[in-house]
Structure formats: structure tokens, C-alpha cells
């Protein structure tokens, strides 16, 4: 399986440059990378660029030997599965419908019994089996997020990008979802990047942490090396204290300056 790396990616929205010379070293398959950084630092833009929904003005994104920039969008999306931060939930579609849609990769018309079974299984595994007949417009924010994660995980890809998959979830579901993502990445031996705001979750689940600030990736490394770095305080504009718990887990405490 292939690793993912980026070199000198630049992306602008009109006059405003959002990604500046973004580069990260090879992210290994089977390992979970966590992308952290303040709001508007470019995390979502980076995901859209990797998945091919945005065209960079320059730069290189490589998956193993494949130059992703050279692939047409359709083909690229068979390598990269991107879960956007939110979806519009005012449609009269059931949870089962929308997971099926992701499973079918919006192709074809027919649904056979294998399709039905894999979608049913995926919903069950994700703990949303009892919701599968519910309309997405009736879901809570957290339930919608579980559906979104299920939609992503039912697809087969070499790279999975999750944009804040836990922002609306309660504590138990945050841990469950991240654990499920981490296990899936490991089992399928694929590249996974999750954007998170919670530094404690990042420290706990990440094999690698990438730190974004104002369109740059300013740090890349293991939680042990990245989280204690004084730079984080600067990145978020807060003062940060890091302590190591009895099971060697890092916990982060932030205070306003």
C-alpha cells in the first residue's frame, strides 16, 4: 500500500492565498495522521485540494508512484475518500438511502441484495442501525455526523480524509468514532488524515500530528514531539500546559493569555 506526500502546494481563492507552500512528508498507510490548527488555517482547503475538488496553482501530491494531480477528478476520487465537515440535511432521504448513495459511488441505478447487505451491515457496525429508516432531516447534529462517517467508511479508497468528524458528538461517540476510524485505517492499511480541534483527542489517537497555521504546515511529528512544543501556544494564541498522565498519556490544558 502507498504513502501520501505533498510538496509546495499553493491554493488561492481569488486574491486570497489560503495554502502557502504546504508540504508534508510521507504519511504511512495504516497510521492515523491528525491535522490540527486554528479556525481558517486552511485544514478544509487542504483536504479539498488532496481530494481534487480544488485545483492548486502549483505543487505536487503523490500517492505512492501516482501523481494525483495528473488524474481526472472521477478517477482521483476512487483513490481519495473525503468526508466534508457538514452536509445539508433538509432532504427527504433516509439514512439507509444516503449510505447506499455513498456505497454506489453515485453510479448505476440498480441495487442488488449484496448492496443491501453491505449497507445494512455498515449501518449496524456504526451503531446507527436503528436509525436507518429515519429521514436525515430528523437527525440530531451528532447522528448526522455518525451517518457522514459511515458514508465515508463504506467506500473503498487508498486515502481517507475526515474533516472534523467528532465536532458534534458526545464524549462516548467521539472516542468510538475515532477508534473506529483508527481501526479501519489500520485494517485496510490505507492513509488516514483526521482534522480535529480537540488537542487531547489528537494526542490520544494520532500516530502523526500535522500542525497548520495561516496556510502553512508548521510542524509534523509524533504526538510526543509535537504536542509539548512551545509552538502550539503560538499557533493558537493561548498559553498551554502539557502534563503526562499515569498511563503516559498526554493531557493538554490551555489558558487565555
Amino acid at each position, binding site marked *: 500500500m502507498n504513502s501520501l506526500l505533498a510538496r509546495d502546494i499553493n491554493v488561492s481563492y481569488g486574491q486570497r492565498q489560503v495554502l502557502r507552500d504546504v508540504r508534508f512528508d510521507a504519511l504511512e498507510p495504516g497510521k492515523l495522521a491528525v491535522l490540527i490548527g486554528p479556525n481558517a488555517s486552511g485544514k478544509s482547503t487542504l483536504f479539498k485540494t488532496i481530494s481534487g*475538488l480544488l485545483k492548486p496553482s502549483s505543487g505536487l501530491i503523490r500517492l505512492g508512484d501516482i501523481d494525483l494531480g495528473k488524474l481526472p*477528478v472521477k478517477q482521483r*476520487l476512487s483513490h481519495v475518500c473525503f*468526508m466534508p465537515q*457538514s*452536509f445539508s440535511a433538509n432532504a427527504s*432521504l433516509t439514512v439507509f*438511502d*444516503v449510505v447506499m*448513495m455513498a456505497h454506489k459511488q453515485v453510479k448505476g441505478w440498480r441495487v442488488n441484495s449484496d448492496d443491501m447487505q453491505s449497507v445494512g451491515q455498515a449501518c449496524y457496525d456504526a451503531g446507527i442501525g436503528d436509525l436507518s429508516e429515519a429521514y436525515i432531516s430528523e437527525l440530531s447534529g451528532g447522528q448526522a455526523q455518525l451517518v457522514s462517517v459511515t458514508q465515508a467508511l463504506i467506500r473503498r479508497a487508498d486515502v481517507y480524509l475526515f474533516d472534523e468528524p467528532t465536532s458534534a458528538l458526545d464524549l462516548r461517540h467521539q472516542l468510538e468514532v475515532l477508534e473506529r476510524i483508527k481501526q479501519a485505517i489500520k485494517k485496510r492499511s490505507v492513509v488516514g488524515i483526521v482534522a480535529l480541534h480537540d488537542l487531547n483527542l489528537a494526542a490520544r489517537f494520532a500516530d502523526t500530528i500535522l500542525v497548520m497555521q495561516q496556510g502553512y504546515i508548521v510542524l509534523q511529528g509524533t504526538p510526543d514531539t509535537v504536542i509539548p512544543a512551545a509552538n502550539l501556544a503560538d499557533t493558537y494564541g493561548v498559553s498551554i500546559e502539557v502534563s503526562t498522565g499515569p498511563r503516559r498519556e498526554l493531557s493538554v490544558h490551555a489558558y487565555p493569555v
Partner: protein
Amino acid sequence: MVIAATTLLLACVVFDIITGPADLGFWRTLTVVFNPSVATIQEQVIVWDLRLPVALMAIAVGAMLGVAGAEMQTILNNPLADPFTLGLSSAASFGAALAIALQWSIVPGMGDIIVTANAFVLAMATSLLLFGFTRLRGVTPEAMILVGIAMLFTFNALLAFLQYGASELELAQIIFWQLGSLARASWMKVGVCVTVLVLVMGYLISRSWALTALRMGEEKAASLGVNVSRLRLAVLLAVSLLSAIAVSFVGTVAFVGLVGPHIARLIVGEDQRGFLPISALAGALIMSGTSIASKAITPGVIYPIGMITSLIGIPFFISLILSQRKRHWQ
């Protein structure tokens, strides 16, 4: 579901054919349909040249408006979108009025079909204008609806202007055109409608998952591999063609394009594999029912359908909204 609706539709068609000013009776009419050779010339004309084209036209136009409304609502992400609210119907009315009041043809050399041709050209031009708007950067689907409503008012104002200057006879003709009538049906028109409907439906069915995905938001659809802007343009063009043809053939028919899809949404949800056919069937049923009602209210008189669509559709629609909805994956 689809089978039940189709059966109901067939019943409507049969009923539509047997009702009319000349009382032929149920069996006699069916005999003429299936075995024209035994009928008198007069009966043949009534059934084959008058009633059958009207009955089939009602279905075709209803289905076209249902499909057009369904996909306009889908691509513009707005439950109020339909050929009427986007200004296509008013544009067609204005085109027809131009021909009636000023004998002014937009495309020269149209002869007898000048009214239909004008209506079609203006309706199509309006949707091309909307189409042009989608190509501008930063134009949201919401803005397109507003542009459509602006069109509606512009053409209504222009129409009023023409009506103000028209003679009494012309005025009556303009108003009659606007009210909508299936009496203009002919086998040729039925053929055009069915051909276009089949082609457009084929395209839409092939993109049904992509259209369903669009309902979850542009970003989500794009992340699933849908080329959102291209899909939106192609579908807009296809449904514009449908609605322009429908309104130019039968005049303004409000309500069907709006309500047909809503009925479908309440019954089967928005998975396009059910939503699209049921929208078409719902539209066809409303129009067919309207056609029957237009003949049945006062025996011997055929009322314009535009007046009746809303009157028979609304009670049904309200009852559907009020009843609890339940559905299952099929």
C-alpha cells in the same frame, strides 16, 4: 407504488376518453378505440382526432411538468422552483400575446404555428438566460430563483402592456391562451411531447444517484464524484426544453410542476429512483383528472384546464400534507 399509480392513470385515460360533449357511451367508445373500422366517420373523428389526442396530451404534458418541476427543485435546492415560478410560463404567455396582438413572429415564416413558436422561443430564451446566470461566478441557486421571479414579474408587466393596447377580440384570445387548454392537442404534438419526455427521462434516470447526492449539498455531492456545475447545467437545459414545449403547446398550467414533485416527495422521499417516476406519474394524474373535470363540471362545456388544475389539486395536496407520512426502503 408505481404499478398502482399507473393503473390509476390508465383508468383516468379511459374515463377521459369516454367523457365529452357527444355522448357515445362507455362500450361504444372503447369499441371505436380498439376497432375503428366498425365506427361511423363521425365517431372516428370524435374519438381518434379529438378525444384520444387530448387524453394523451394531458398525460404527456402532466408528466413533463412533473419531471421539470422535480428536477428544478432538485438542482436549485428550492421547493418552490417550477416552470411557473421561474418565469417560463409568463415568458410563453408573453410570446403568445405578441403573436396574437401584434402578429409579430420572433422566428419568421412560422405561418399557422406562430403562437406556439413564439411561446416556445421566449420560454426557452428565459431558461437560457437563467442558464447563463448559473455560469456567472458566485451565483447561488437562491439567487437564480430570485432571477426567475424577476422574470415572472417582467413578463407579466409586458403582457399587461400588450393587453392594454389589444382589441377586445385579441384580448379574449390572449386570456384564453393564458388559461391553458388541451383542445390544441394533435397527434403531432403528442408525438413531440412523448419523444422529448422519453429522451429526457432516460438521461435523468442515468444520473439518478448523482441527482440524489445533490440533495445532500454541493460539497457532499462533489466529494462523491459528482461534477455539480456540469450536472446542474445539463439538467437545467433538459428540463427547460420539457417545460418550454409543454407550456407552448397547452398554455399556462400552474400548480402541476410545483405539486406533482411534492406529492412524490411525500410518498416516496427523494431517492430519485422513486422520486422521478412518481413525480411524472403524479403530474400526469393531475392533468388527466383536470381534463376529465374540465368536461364534467358543466356537460357540453369544456373549461380551460389552467383554471381547474389548482382547484382539484389543492384539496388532494393539503390532505396529503396533513396525513402522516411513512415510507420504507424498497
